[in-house]
Structure formats: C-alpha cells, structure tokens
C-alpha cells in the first residue's frame, strides 16, 4: 500500500493526493447511491405511492429539520477547521453529534409506533423498516466518524494544513443528509 509520504516522494504532491482522496470518496458515494437507489425503487415497485394513514408526519418533519440543522453545524465545523478556528470546530462538531444522536432517538421512537401500525411483515413495513434502517445505520457510522475527528482534533490534529480528514467526514455526513432528502418524501409524502 502506498503511503502519502511515498506519493509525495515520487512526485505526487499533497494536491495530487487530495485529488486521489476526492476520487475515492466520490466513487464510494456513487456505490452508496446505487444501494439507496435499489431500496427506494423497491418501495415504489411493491407499494407504488401508497402510504399508510398512521404515519407520524409531525415526527418525520421534525426529524428532517433536525438532520438539516446537523448539516449546517457540520458545514460550520468544516469551515472553522479550514480557518484554524479550533474552538469553533469543536463546538460545531459536538453540535452535529448531538443533533445526529437526536435524529437516531427520533427514529427509535418512530419505529416503536411503526411496529404497531405496519410491522415489517407487511409490504409497506418491509420497505419502511429496510429503508429507514439502512439510513439510520449510515447516520450511526457518520456519528462514529464525527467522534473520531472530534477526539483527534482535540489532540491538535487537522486545521487548514491538514483539512482532508475533516472534509471527508463532513462530506459523508452531507451525503447521509442528501439521502434523507430523498427518503423522506419517498416514505412519507408521495
């Protein structure tokens, strides 16, 4: 495996390494898009646009707002890191983690209600639990990644000279937000 130092030694500067990182991340996003796309298309293939009347619309709207708020706090954390504002980076990363945790708590509440009205054995329940579950798992992994950059940032890592790890994690968080922007109307509104 080629390390960053070896790449630089062989004429690939940090800029080249950054482009390679970007390419890898966006290829990962492309593969994830196919995964989410398969789940979303299966929802329409099995139940068309039919949605149960028992869906908790207020909770789903609240979850959407929470995730959008986490996106702005993540963006602020990234901006603070790129401008060497360590305190801002820490505050906004913690805010993003709290909002992400709140989102997962809301999903847990939603699932307890959903189990009663449309359990996983029903057609809509299968689509609902698999799609929301897939997304919640991505939120969970995003939270773990955010915790990692928070603790490494506390040790003095990153900043404007080494912003890629933070940028990569925050981009992943935005991707998870983007996925919800499509999942929310797919399950609740159409």
């Amino acid at each position: 495996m080629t390390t960053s130092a070896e790449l630089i030694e062989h004429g690939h500067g940090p800029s080249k390494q950054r482009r390679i990182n970007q390419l890898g991340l966006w290829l990962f996003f492309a593969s994830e898009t196919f995964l989410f796309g398969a789940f979303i298309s299966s929802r329409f293939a099995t139940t068309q646009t039919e949605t149960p009347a028992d869906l908790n619309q207020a909770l789903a709207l609240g979850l959407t707002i929470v995730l959008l708020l986490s996106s702005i706090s993540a963006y602020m954390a990234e901006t603070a890191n790129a401008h060497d504002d360590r305190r801002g980076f820490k505050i906004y990363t913690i805010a993003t983690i709290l909002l992400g945790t709140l989102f997962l708590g809301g999903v847990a509440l939603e699932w307890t209600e959903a189990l009663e009205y449309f359990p996983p054995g029903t057609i809509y329940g299968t689509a609902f639990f698999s799609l929301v579950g897939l997304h919640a798992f991505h939120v969970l992994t995003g939270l773990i990644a955010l915790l990692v950059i928070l603790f490494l940032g506390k040790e003095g890592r990153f900043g404007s000279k080494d912003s890629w790890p933070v940028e990569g994690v925050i981009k992943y968080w935005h991707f998870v937000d983007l996925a919800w922007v499509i999942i929310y109307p797919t399950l609740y509104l159409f």
Partner: protein
Amino acid sequence: MTAATSTYGPGSYRDKARSGWITAVLLGVLTLIEYAVAVTVENPLLLLLPFVLAKGALIMDFFMHVRKLRTGGDH
C-alpha cells in the same frame, strides 16, 4: 444566491458562515413548502419532485462542494 459560496472558495470566514446559514434557511423553507404541498394535494408526486431536486442541488453544491471537484477542492 450570490451570497452563497463554498467553504474553499473566495470570501472570508464570516461570508462563508453566512452563506451556509442562508443555504440552511432555504433548505428549511423548501422542506416546509414541500410538506404543505404533500398534505394539501392528492397524489403530489410530480409536484414534490422539483423540491427534492432543488434541495439535493443545494446540498451538493454548497455543502458538498461538487463544483470544486475539477480543481480537487484545494484552498
């Protein structure tokens, strides 16, 4: 939306923070309109698609810096 720039584009820290908040407010407003349309219109699929696309474009452009990919997103 001239105020909105990406994290690594030109502009000060404050400008970038402001553009982020403007984007977030736009996303929030679009979500509320989307919800209002969904609860008032029957079979709103086609009416909601522009909202989904607009929100996705905002996130990809301002938050994921998709336009900076060509240059590798360098400072």
